[in-house]
Structure formats: structure tokens, C-alpha cells
């Protein structure tokens, strides 16, 4: 069976190790719950709570991977540890709570934030695997995120120069139907689903136009179509790179909040 590249783990060994560790956690939980009444406040339940808290602290160290932490492995190893340990930490939280919905607001928020942070992290993993592949397979243009507006502006300049001495028909077509499309960056969300979304429809007028211009100007129409294609690809790059950057907003602030609540939770347990 062939697994889609997006679903394929980068380091299969880490997935196997995590699966084995998860199995061990569940077996320990099943054994413990069978032998004794399960409580998050003592015994194995408490141990899993501590393990989860410790794992969260280690997870929090991920942003410290550079530059001082460089002797401790590659950034790739850090990310792998971050992802797989995060999944195990969430499992430890679930087991800590006895695989049941906790009572009380603190328990609710801790579990909800753990679930959100883990899920958003996994969504991030999926985005980080699927978007680059879609961009590499579907787009010819590659651009630095910060430079995209500048590159798009350059395209307008090129297009203007191209039609500077064109016939009235082509000049009007450019002015009325093309220029604004090249000049304005409209990074549609549809690019997330299909990196070439809307391209055929956007290029349709050019196919029509080719039949109305002289043989000499056909080349110019094709060049204009190329410029628009390039601009559409820049838009797709802008949207997709934007998604790759901004999904962290769904992950990092809740993770910070979670860490804060964990500290309060541990402090409360020690104090009371």
C-alpha cells in the first residue's frame, strides 16, 4: 500500500517509538485502573499528571532551539521531539484525568487547552507537510514572502511597458480587463484547497483576445497571460506562505495559556 507523502512520517522510527510509548501508557493505565480506583491526585494518576507537566515544560523549550541550544541536536530532531512528545503529553493528560471529563473549571480548561494545543499542533504538522508539497508541485514561481508585493509591482511595470506601443484593441483590453488583475494582489483562500484555483477562468479572456489581434501581437497577448499567471502564482504564494506563518497564532498563545494554567494547577495541588 502506498501512503500519500503528506501522511508519511518523516522519521518512521519516531512514529513507531511514540506508538509503542502510547501503548505502554494505555496498558499501565488499564492495569492501574483495574487494580485500584483511579485518581488524578495520587498514585499512577498523579504520576501521569507530573509526566504531562514535565512534557509541557520540555515542549515549551522548542523555541530555544537556536542558537545556543545548537549542540543538542538538529532543529529537525527538536521538531520531531516537539511533535511526538506533545502527542504523548496529551495522552498523559487524558490518562491523568482517568479518560473522563474532569469536574471543575480548572480541569475543564486544562483539558480543553491541552486538546486545542495538541490538535492545532497536529493541524500545523499537516499544513507544513501538505502546503509545501502543493506549492512545489503546482507553482513555478518561488518568492520570498516579504518580497511578493514588490515583485507583483514589478509585473505591472513590465505589463505597462509591453502594451506601450500596442494596437488600440490590445491596449483597451489591457486597460479594461487585465491591468487591475495584475496590479492588485488578491490572495484568495481558495488557494489553500487548490494552488491553481481560478487560473483557467482568469486566462480565458486571453484565449479570446488572441483571435482579435494581429499575428504580431499574439506574442504580446501570450506575454500578458504569462505575467498574469505569474501574478496568480505570487498570490498563491502569499496566501499559502501566510497560512504557514499564521497558523502558529492558533497554537502558540493557547500553549502559553496552558503552561500558565499548569503552573497554577501544580501550585494549587502543592499548596492545598
Amino acid at each position, binding site marked *: 500500500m502506498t501512503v500519500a507523502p503528506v501522511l508519511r512520517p518523516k522519521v518512521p522510527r519516531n512514529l513507531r517509538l511514540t506508538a509503542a510509548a502510547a501503548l505502554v501508557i494505555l496498558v499501565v493505565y488499564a492495569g492501574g485502573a483495574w487494580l485500584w480506583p483511579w485518581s488524578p491526585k495520587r498514585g499512577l494518576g498523579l504520576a501521569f499528571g507530573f509526566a504531562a507537566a514535565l512534557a509541557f515544560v520540555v515542549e515549551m523549550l522548542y523555541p530555544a532551539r537556536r542558537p545556543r541550544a545548537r549542540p543538542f541536536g*538538529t532543529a*529537525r530532531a527538536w*521538531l520531531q521531539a516537539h511533535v511526538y512528545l506533545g502527542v504523548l503529553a496529551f495522552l498523559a493528560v487524558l490518562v491523568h484525568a482517568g479518560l473522563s471529563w474532569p469536574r471543575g473549571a480548572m480541569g475543564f480548561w486544562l483539558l480543553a487547552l491541552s486538546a486545542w494545543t495538541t490538535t492545532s499542533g497536529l493541524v500545523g504538522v499537516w499544513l507544513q507537510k501538505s502546503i509545501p508539497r502543493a506549492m512545489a508541485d503546482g507553482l513555478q514561481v518561488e518568492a520570498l514572502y516579504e518580497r511578493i508585493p514588490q515583485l507583483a509591482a514589478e509585473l505591472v511595470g513590465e505589463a505597462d511597458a509591453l502594451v506601450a506601443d500596442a494596437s488600440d484593441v490590445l491596449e483597451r483590453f489591457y486597460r479594461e480587463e487585465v491591468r487591475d488583475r495584475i496590479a492588485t494582489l488578491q490572495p484568495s483562500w481558495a488557494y489553500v484547497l487548490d494552488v491553481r484555483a481560478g487560473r483557467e477562468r482568469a486566462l480565458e479572456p486571453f484565449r479570446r483576445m488572441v483571435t482579435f489581434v494581429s499575428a504580431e501581437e499574439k506574442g504580446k497577448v501570450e506575454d500578458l497571460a504569462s505575467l498574469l499567471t505569474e501574478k496568480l502564482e505570487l498570490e498563491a504564494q502569499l496566501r499559502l506562505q501566510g497560512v504557514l506563518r499564521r497558523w502558529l497564532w492558533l497554537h502558540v498563545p493557547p500553549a502559553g495559556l496552558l503552561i500558565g494554567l499548569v503552573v497554577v494547577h501544580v501550585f494549587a495541588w502543592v499548596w492545598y
Partner: protein
Amino acid sequence: MTAPPDLAQLRERYEQRLRLMVPAEMELLTGLSLFAGIPEKAREKVIEKVRKYIHLCTYSRGEVILREGDYGDSAYYVVAGTVEVVLGRPGEPDRPPAPRVRGGAHRVRPTDRAGARPGAERMIGRGGGTDTVVLSAFPAEVAPGGRALLEAGEIFGEISALSRYPISATVRAASPLKLLQIRLPGLRMLQASSKEFKKFLDTRYRERTLARHLKSVSLFEDVAAAVIESVREKAELVAFEPGQIVAEEGKPADAFYLVRGGYLKVSVTAGTADLAVTYLRTGDFAGEASLVLDDEPWPFTLQALEHVELVKLARDDFRKILAAHPKVEEKLWQSMVARLKLRGAAARHPVSSEYLQMAMDTGLIHGESVLLIDLATCTRCDDCVRGCADAHAGEPRFIREGQRYRNWLVPTACYQCTDPVCMMDCPTGAITRAVGTLEVQINPATCIGCSNCAKRCPWGNIVMVEQEERRPDGKHVELASKCDLCFGRPEGPACVQMCPHGSAQRISFKDMERVVETLR
């Protein structure tokens, strides 16, 4: 600690460099024996043509003209004075201890260096693991560690310039000195316009260097001196320009070629396509089939990718030598089998041939350590660039932009070329590479910001970076900056280490197996 640069000395060297921008005087040149071989009628015209590449330089006693390990782009003709040639020998008693930093070149042996890549010592030139590639245009009688004096009328440095070998000796002025510096284009022009001059250079190469060149080639490394001598006598020295066909597939094979300098493409015809099998560079050879098989046509086409210099041996001559030395024939058979395997592999895996062709077309073939980014896994987070900046005091040495091949991006990071052309023409010797290492480095303490290297780099991988310091005219000082593979960083290049997705890789396009494995 690195000693601060002597600014006065640097300024003097820079000014000397500026003087080199002025071509030598016509009157001076016409009287020199160097041009005597040019037919009298054409002499003045030829000199006028090449004059822009010839400069008169003066050196004070003790001043260094060429340094061992650097790459030269010029030959030097001694007009007046005496030149001292010193052939280095590591660890010799009268040699001052090697400083930690010498003109920017960290002299740590590649194998001693933390994080050294295995086999790094064999990765440039044809050093065979020795400290220096001993091939030079200096008198052959100078043994390693020895000294020789060159007087007026002598020429030196031409082999390094023509064949792109690192200079194998340090040359100093033994007295107040006047030299004509003949830049590479001028050297080639003179070769083309004066049979005498070409003959002169060829004779010198044959007498002083060819024997050592032959000994450095695996085919001849164990053979007796008599064989080398026979080959040396019968060899013909030939040159080809880019695109020229040296040998054509299917045509009678009548010669054996040894590459003196430059790159050649080896290709076979598969249907209507031209399939690149491999490439040849300095020290490689071709044509062994013609020597061991009767009436065997060329099994491939040999095409010059740039200006190439070859040593040609006629089949009949070589066969006579082979008859007396079966060991050489045995090696030829081995080599032929290896070449046939390569040909078979290229036919079976056309993708390898495609990558090779791409590497030759784009110049990546020159790279010893090319940064590649897999766009199918790269999340464009720029951690590679940030890692690079962190490793270089906040100033990144590349940007994540460049040419794209399939799903791979080749950013504008130095390829660490086998023959770093940026090294030539550096007036202060600020660009260096310790022989046997990959890292071509620029020493900011001795860089004067002339931008020669940035202009020279064919791939645009050297940039001039504005510094806070200002020149007397108020303009900001600009210094050359390029990737140095994070030299001295035990974890290796930061761009690779800091990529969270393993998308950034460093590969040598000479290792086609790895290239195919990586790019597929």
C-alpha cells in the same frame, strides 16, 4: 588572537593593485624576448592587442608575489631583478610555525578539524591526500622545502593560470623586482598568436611539469620513471575551446587524452538524445579503449565545456609503451570497465544523465558543497537564513532565492567551487582555501572591498556588504561576504542544522550517486 592588519601595508598593496589597471608601455614590451617569437610584421599589432592584459609591477625585496595554495590568474615574466621560489614542506624545521590564521586560511588539517567530513582531504584538485597539489611551472629541480632563484627573462605561474591548479610554491622578490604580469586572456592570446610562445610554454610544461602531472594520475602512479619519460617525449599538448568536440562517438579512436585543465563532457547517443555519462576534469583521462582494443571506435563523445588543455598521445606511440609495461595496460582495462559501467548506468537510469547535464549546464558541477532546499518539504520559515545569521554575527551569508530545478531550490550560497575563480584577482589575498578543505573564506581583516571577487563569481554568490565604518570620502566601507560553510562550527553549516524539516542539504555535484538519491 589574530594580529590586527597592517593598514599601511594593505593600502600599499591596494595602490599597487590600482597601478595594475594601467597597461604596460608599448616601448617596454616590444624590446622583450618574450615576444620575439611573434613574426616581426605582426608583432606590434599582437602586442597592442594583448597589452591591456599585461601590467608592469614592481616589488620590494621580500615582498610576496604568489602564495602557496592560492589560485593564480596570471603568468609573470621577470623583467629585472631576482625572484625566489620556495616550495613548502609541512613541518620543515626552518619554517616558522603555521599561524592559526594565515591570510584568513585556517590551517587546520581537514581530518583534524572538529566535524570534518570524511574524505574531505581528497575533495579538491587531485591532491591525493598530500598537503599541496605539486604541479607548477617552477623549476623541477626545486625539491619540497627547497629554494630556487629565477632571473630576468624567466616566466612563472603560467601553469596555475592555464590549468587552474593551486599555486604550489610561494614566490618572493629576492631583490628589487620588475615583473610583467600577464593575465589569463593575454596569455591565451599570446599562445594563439605566437607559435613560438606556445612552443615555449609547451616545452616548459613538458620539461618541468608533465612528468609530475603524469605521476599524479592514477594510471601512471606506480609505473617506472622510464615509462613516464617515454610518454613525456611523445605527448602532444592540445587545447580546445568551449563547445568544441574533442572526439566523436563512432569515429576511429586514435588517441589517448589526459586532461591538463578544464572540464569536458562525456556523452553517448541514445536514440535522438545526447546522454551525458560523466565529465572529465584535470587529472582525468579518456581514450583507453583505443589503446587496449583493435580498431575500436570512440564509445562516447568528448566535448569541451570550457577552455580545456589536454595531453594527447597517439595510439601507436602509446601501444609501444604498453608493450613494455603490462601493468599500465591492466589499469587501462580496469578504467575501461569502469567507464562502460558508467555508460550502462546512464542508459539504464537516464535521470542520472539528466542531472549530470543539468549540473554541467548550470555550473553546479563546479560545486564541492552546494546548498539545496527541497521545496516540497520547506515551509519557508527562513530558519536556515536565521541560523546562518546567528552563526555570522547577525549577518546572513545567503538568501533563500536562486535558480530552481524541479522541486529543488539552489539558493545564492557559495558553491565552494573546485576551482574558485573568486580567489584569482584578490589583491590582498583575503580569499583563501587551505588545500584539502572545502571552505573558501574571505578574511574581513584583509578584504579591502575592491569587489573583484563579487564580479568574478559566475553564480553571483558573493555580495558586497556595507559596513558601519566609513572611508575618508564619507562613503561606507563595503566588504565582500559569502558562505564559508560555517567554518569552525563543530555542528557544520548552520543552514542545514537549523532546518526543522530536513529540507536544506549540502551536496557535491561530483557525487552523482548522492545527487540522484537526493533529487529523485
